[in-house]
């Protein structure tokens, strides 16, 4: 028997058009807020002379980590500046930090809700699976429809791809708090929010930080894809180098991303370790 094809594609396009027509003000608001955040951050990062910013990052690395960490930061950032990729790298950093920041703002509360309610967890988990496995190119198109070309759809698609670890690990971290401790908190008459802020979040913090670390890494991995829809930065250099067949340029820009990734990863890792030993 030949069943007619389900017109799923038509439905999705109808939904896209409907959302565009009815939620236009909301998308406009998001576009302005996200655009301004990235733009503002980018302006600040690029307003500071590279040398001073390099010293600030190095000092931060030395404060949080060890001297080896500081040395790597110093040498790595000098190399980026030397390759002439400084302002592009700062654009990328602004994009990544914005995406990570928004992911944390939304991801941690959603993770908390998941930890508190089995029903919420059951609904959210498949959605997260969907967000992580659906190829990123597929949601670039609606992102352009809703937010037009530029950095904003890049940030939005980075968030979609990068937010799941923060949600998952916040949920996991809270659920891993030993039940006898939760029982003790109850036995002394804690309200649910006292229990959350005095017991569950402090104990879940290393796990939540591991989630945030993953989120930062994943949004960094989205910068090349984001550049395809108009986000500026080193990602755009990589994309252009690939389309023009310039291996050397591509490698230089790719190296800048790697250096940025290592610095961000080690810094957040150190924060986790400090929390654990505190």
């Amino acid at each position, binding site marked *: 028997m030949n069943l007619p094809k389900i017109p799923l594609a038509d439905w999705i396009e109808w939904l896209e058009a409907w959302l565009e027509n009815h939620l236009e003000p909301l998308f406009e608001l998001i576009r302005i807020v996200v655009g301004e955040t990235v733009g503002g951050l980018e302006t600040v990062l690029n307003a500071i002379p590279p040398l001073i910013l390099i010293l600030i990052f190095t000092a931060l690395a030395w404060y949080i980590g060890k001297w080896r960490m500081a040395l790597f930061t110093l040498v790595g950032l000098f190399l980026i500046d030397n390759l002439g990729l400084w302002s592009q790298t700062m654009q990328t950093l602004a994009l990544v930090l914005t995406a990570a920041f928004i992911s944390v703002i939304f991801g941690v509360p959603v993770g908390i809700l998941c930890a508190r309610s089995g029903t919420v967890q059951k609904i959210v988990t498949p959605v997260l699976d969907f967000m992580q496995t659906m190829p990123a190119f597929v949601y670039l198109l609606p992102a352009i429809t809703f937010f037009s070309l530029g950095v904003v759809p890049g940030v939005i698609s980075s968030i979609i791809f990068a937010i799941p670890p923060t949600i998952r690990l916040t949920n996991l971290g809270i659920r891993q708090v030993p039940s*006898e401790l939760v029982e003790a908190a109850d*036995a002394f*008459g804690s309200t649910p929010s006292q229990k959350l802020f*005095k017991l569950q979040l402090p*104990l879940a913090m290393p796990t939540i930080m591991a989630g945030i670390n993953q989120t930062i890494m994943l949004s960094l991995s989205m910068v090349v894809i984001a550049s395809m829809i108009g986000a500026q930065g080193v990602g755009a250099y990589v994309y252009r180098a690939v389309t023009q067949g310039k291996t050397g340029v591509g490698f230089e820009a790719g190296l800048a991303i790697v250096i940025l990734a290592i610095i961000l990863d080690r810094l957040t890792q150190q924060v986790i370790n400090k929390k654990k030993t505190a």
Partner: protein
Amino acid sequence: MAIIEAKRLTKVFGTDPKKAIPLMDKGWSKEKIFAETKLTVGVNQADFAIEEGQIFVIMGLSGSGKSTLVRLLNRLIEPTSGQVLFNGTDVLRMSPEQLRQFRRKNIGMVFQKFALFPHRTVIQNIEYGLEVQGIDKNKRREMAMSALELVGLAGWENSYPDQLSGGMQQRVGLARGLASDPDVLLMDEAFSALDPLIRKDMQDELLELQSKMKKTIVFITHDLNEALRIGDQIALMKDGAIVQIGSPEEILMQPANKYVERFVEDVDLSKVLTASHVMVKAETITPDKGPRVALQFMRDRGISSLYVVDKGMRLLGVVTAEDASNAIKNGLKLEEVMVREAPSAAPDTMLHELFEMMSSSKLPVGIIDAGGRLKGIVIKGAVLAALAGNSTPEAGEHHESA
């Protein structure tokens, strides 16, 4: 009035737990209810009343429902049916806010695995209950410090729990339970995770604390010796139901059924029973009576020694029949021939300690209270009879010292 009263307090685990209640009313066993309905009876219609200032021990083997029962009292586990009355107020009808206030102010808890918060220092752990009440920082620090001193851990306030030994951690747990000065303290197998010597120390300290603070304590244990040692009342549980409630002596001497009997048969009675359990009334005489009277008295009663006491029942010495005849021959007074260093002990002396005294003396041991008054005497035969599991011997019968 009882401070805590449980009336037909029941907990059934499973879906639609109320189904099990009519079956329990019919007297079905836990196994039968599970086989028929897949419902697990946690606590089966427990009835008891706890008087203020008592240590009420709930004891039973693992799986007997004792940990569930104690959690029904502060609703960490929601009861299926029945009542919990705290000073006459039904705890089960409290709103979430009332329940929180009840837990904060009236009922503290100490846990088997300590359940200390690892990210908080000792003092922050102790003040947790005060902190959630919203008590001012300085005030609560002060209250927490006095609780810390009470358990003998002053100086450790800024350590983290994982820097302390098990015994010290549980002292912190105890201090946390006592910090808000609750009326009732629930102790769920509080000493079970500690090694035996530390455990005994903690029991001693608890009893000492109790003599000062007069808290009402609900103490859960699976260890009968512990129960007998610290309990004023003991409730013995099996399969979720309370099998017997009574004083330690009642549990030992009058077991309600075969189960309790089998439970108590391995108890080392010499470490549980005290002199006051086995002592009998002493035959006494005042020193103003002559040796002839004393001798006659002993002949009449068929005994071989008499305790010489003053008018206030304070023990002066012991006179044997032999001493009395010597006195008559030599024209001496009773006071001049009596043995002044008669063996004596306090009423709460354990039987195994009495053994040593008795082996070194022919005379029975006089039992003397704190005011020096003679309360009774312990005879070797009575001790042996008690250890053999017979109930308290009648006075006078075996009153010849070996």
